């Protein structure tokens, strides 16, 4: 049990899909964050699209997913 033998039948390809799905779930959770919350700390009049931390996070996740897809 301690060695996760019960997951030995899961192939490497399936395992890779689990990781990619995880990034997808995290991406959806990031999208669900209220926009107001990700801008908190910047005055309303100074907010620009490049301050949107959702975009930053989704970009990072997209690069990460592409690394795992490729390798």
């Amino acid at each position, binding site marked *: 049990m*301690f*060695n*996760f*033998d019960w*997951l*030995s039948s*899961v192939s*490497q390809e399936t*395992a*890779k899909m*689990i*990781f990619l799905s*995880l*990034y997808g779930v*995290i991406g959806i959770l*990031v999208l669900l*964050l*209220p926009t*107001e*919350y*990700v*801008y*908190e*700390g*910047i005055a309303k009049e100074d907010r620009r699209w490049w*301050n949107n*931390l959702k975009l*930053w*996070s989704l*970009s*990072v*996740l997209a*690069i*990460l997913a592409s*690394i*795992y897809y490729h*390798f």
Partner: protein
Amino acid sequence: MLAGIDYFIVIAYIIGMLLLGLYFKKFVNSSEDYFLGGKSLPFWAIGMSIVVSDIGALDFVGVSGQAYRYGISVGNFDWVGSVPAMLLAAFIFIPYFWRGGMYTIPEYLGRRYNQKVRTIASVTWILFFALDLGVLFWASAVLLNVLMGWPIWISIISTAGVVGLYTYFGGITAVIMTDVVQFFIMFIGGFALVFLSLYEVGGWDSMVDKIATMGPEYRNHFDIIQPQDTKSPFPWTGILFGLTFVMANAYMIGNQSIVQRCLTAKNEWHAKASMIFGSALKMFIPILVLFPGLMAVVVHPGLADGDQALPLMIKSILPPGLVGLMFAAFFAGLMSSVDSLLNSTATLFTKDIYEPFIKKGADDKHYLKVGQITTLVLLVIGVVTSPISSDFPGIYVAIQTFMSYFQGPLFAILLLGIFWKRTTEWGGLSALVIGIGFAIFLNVFKEEFFTIEDPFLYISWWSFLLGVIINVSVSLLTKKHTDEQLEGLVFSSKILVKNKKL
């Protein structure tokens, strides 16, 4: 091995760091300036500092060596083992810590659970950091001696002198801003080695083709996901459960030296952005530290010790000048690790031990002085105890291993503390103590329980799981905290929709 130009680069780097660090002395007028940089720092500096303080001189060699032996799966530690945890920290934990005006992670645990949990967590961190300092000095100095022929005591004294001076006077602002320069030195030195190595092996595709023909032991070298029954320490089950779910989160959310940097941000947006920016930079780290090890498989095949891969690549690939830059990058790795240990330990001691137990209610200048003196004392302890490591060759690994066993239970109480209102002080305390005990038990009897080479990922997961079970069970049997006690300490959707108010 060093040419004249290399010595010039290294010495210029050391003097430059000293002058830059001392420049920030003028910004330190209070304990908040010293420990939290006056809450004035920008996200980009903090993000770079988080990344650079996470790579030591030893990691360059160690990770390259593991890449030589096990292939690209070592990159999991900086990819899936960092990015999701940093996003979780950025959007959930850091805003709580930042809005709460906290200085330390144990301070949160003290408010959420009780003073005992705070003290246990803080003392554990202080002991670990203090022990690690001497060991880190010695191990890094030996490495620099082997790589470059640089005398051991010159490495230790020059690092201690420079880092000690700027950390003593400039506090965390000096630590973070010198880290920014160290970041560029590391990246320029590291990428120079990667590009020249790639040229040497004939490009990426050529390297992959050559390694593929080298035998069955290299079959999985370019698989980031390793099978569950691999003999390497990185089966996908360990990477998912131990690393992604536990160790990465514990490190990014529960490690004082990481979180304290985010608390120096000038506002909440910068605090969150620093972690996300850091996660973007983190993705480049495997290129710097892992790729040279992979390329060494082609350039220097059949090495008995994988840790020889990087030194051999430096010797055979880099021209004079760039060797000095790479050496400066190793120094940068050592300095950024040492300054983080010094400042974080001084903060933990002053805020979690000295202020509540030794002298309550003193004026702010007094705590500033205590923080500075603690920095100095730690530095002296680190230098004086460093030769002890030569009598205990396995001590560096032993200390790192010990710390990894603290991570699972710590993350269990942090996670339940912030997400579950019903968690009580006794639940948290018992989970921490029993969880650490269980991790030590599994480590002692690891050959009976585990089949892989080094099961630290599995041990983290199981000790985390036991920590959760103990915390939930004991909490349900003990008196719950009142809403007033929990105000601002437990996750609420209000944080997402209402400004400022938790």
